[in-house]
């Protein structure tokens, strides 16, 4: 199957800190991939390089065959304008650890913001489909509430609906449940499992091993800015080859 995300030789340095030391991997269409690894191993940076919230120091990322951030012409890569880069990003959904809902807008306004302002869809049509996405995350009744009136779990589900409303070809999740109280984690994971079943391509940074086991097709384990081990969910979790993977899994299971 043709990969929808192709990451090749991506390096990212912050000053002298090498957050990514040349990472390559492909993700197929419809695949659900979980990225595991200790804190500081470069998981967020890798995710953020996919939609160019961080520009890689070197290497390229392709999504749907297009190089992100550049236009390709006769062996040259020309940096895209802000507008062109924004257009590419509109096809890559992202869900953040801290939700990052727009606090001055209601739930519904949050969800239609992208379709109306970026895709220039009609407001009435956007509201129609926004309500369907809110239904899907179980929050249609909160359409007119402000984010500050919702629990963390509800806010994160709105953030998922906001990303889905752009009808992205892939969705990136950066520790979507790490900021949540334990009793609210389940409702968010439930929504994500449902999305995974629907065939959406998802790349998920998470510490929820049980969720990864259930939802992921494949697992990537990162450490020290590199992919240490990757493989089918059952193989990697059941029979990790690399000692660092084993050590990490042993630590998070207890």
């Amino acid at each position, binding site marked *: 199957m043709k990969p929808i995300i192709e990451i090749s030789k991506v390096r990212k340095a912050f000053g002298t800190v090498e957050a990514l030391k040349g990472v390559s991997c492909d993700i197929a269409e419809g695949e659900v991939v979980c990225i595991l690894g200790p804190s500081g191993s470069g998981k967020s940076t890798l995710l953020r390089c996919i939609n160019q919230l961080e520009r890689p120091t070197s290497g390229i990322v392709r999504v749907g065959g297009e190089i992100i951030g550049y236009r390709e012409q006769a062996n040259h890569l020309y940096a895209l304008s802000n507008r062109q880069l*924004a257009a590419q990003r509109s*096809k890559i959904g*992202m869900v*953040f650890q801290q939700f990052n809902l*727009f*606090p001055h807008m209601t739930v519904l306004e949050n969800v239609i*913001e*992208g379709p109306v*302002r970026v895709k220039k869809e009609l407001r009435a049509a956007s509201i129609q489909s926004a309500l369907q996405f809110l239904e899907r995350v179980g929050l249609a009744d909160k359409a007119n509430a402000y984010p500050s*009136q919702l629990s963390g779990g509800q806010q994160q589900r709105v953030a998922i609906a906001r990303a889905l409303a752009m009808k992205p070809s892939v969705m990136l999740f950066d520790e979507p449940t790490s900021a949540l109280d334990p009793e609210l984690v389940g409702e968010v994971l439930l929504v994500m499992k449902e999305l995974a079943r629907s065939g959406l391509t998802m790349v998920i940074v998470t510490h929820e091993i049980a969720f990864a086991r259930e939802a992921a097709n494949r697992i990537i384990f990162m450490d020290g800015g590199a992919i240490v081990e990757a493989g089918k969910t059952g193989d990697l979790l059941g029979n990790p080859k690399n000692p660092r993977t084993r050590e990490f899994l042993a630590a998070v299971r207890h």
Partner: protein
Amino acid sequence: MSKNDLNTPDEYVFVRKIHYGRYLAVALIILLLGIIVRAFVVGKIAWAVVGEYLFDRDIMAGIVNSMILTVFVMVVGVMLAVTVALMAGSKNPVLRYTARGYMFVFRSVPILLQLLIWYNLALIFPQITIPFVVSVSTTQVLTPFVAALLAFGIAQGAYTTEVIRSGLLSVGRGQVEAAASIGMTYSQSLYRIIIPQAMRVIVPPLGNETIGMVKYTSLASVIQYREIIYSAQSIYFASGRVIEMLMVCAFWYALVIGILSIVQGYIERYYNRSSRGSAAGEADL
């Protein structure tokens, strides 16, 4: 003695504490106010003349001119401030240092001095020339209004930059990233996401600066701009009714600023609407 012998609460008389200090303070304030009012009533001030000039045509034109100048100055000041605040946050060092330099220069020179320099700019540059287009004498362009607008607007911009900048910084990085992740450009996120949230931080100090500017416009009387103090002076140079005319000015300033304070309160409430308590918010679902 058994427990039942104690009084129940109903059997007691509760005696309130008396705030002697407060009563004393109130008495003193009333006394002081009385002395001041009496002093002004019996003093050499013709209140009938104050009343007579309160709605004088020149006075009314003066206060209107003060307000027109304030509005234009604040528009120029805020536009400059937004530009310079964005420059100050730029990754380009030339833009950043230019912003710093502008803020330093126009905040360190007294506003009255800046006003006089702009008004007397013709002494340095007698002609303003745009090659092949136009050449005019500087005094024709720098009328009192234009000189005051430039002097106050540019100086106000230097002060307001700090206000706008702290407003923009009050909006977290996560907001810009979330906007970028749904495909918004930076300028779209500026108008839709950052500025609306920054307003909560910006409006209160900006309101105070607007109110301050209403009062600062009185300085423009020294360059013959026809604001209210200039009108009052023109009248009292002829009639000798100095203190009466100054009272008229004080009345109009207090009225305008009182109204502006009320408007400011409404605007602040508008920008705080999304942070209302959940009970109030649920009700209007």
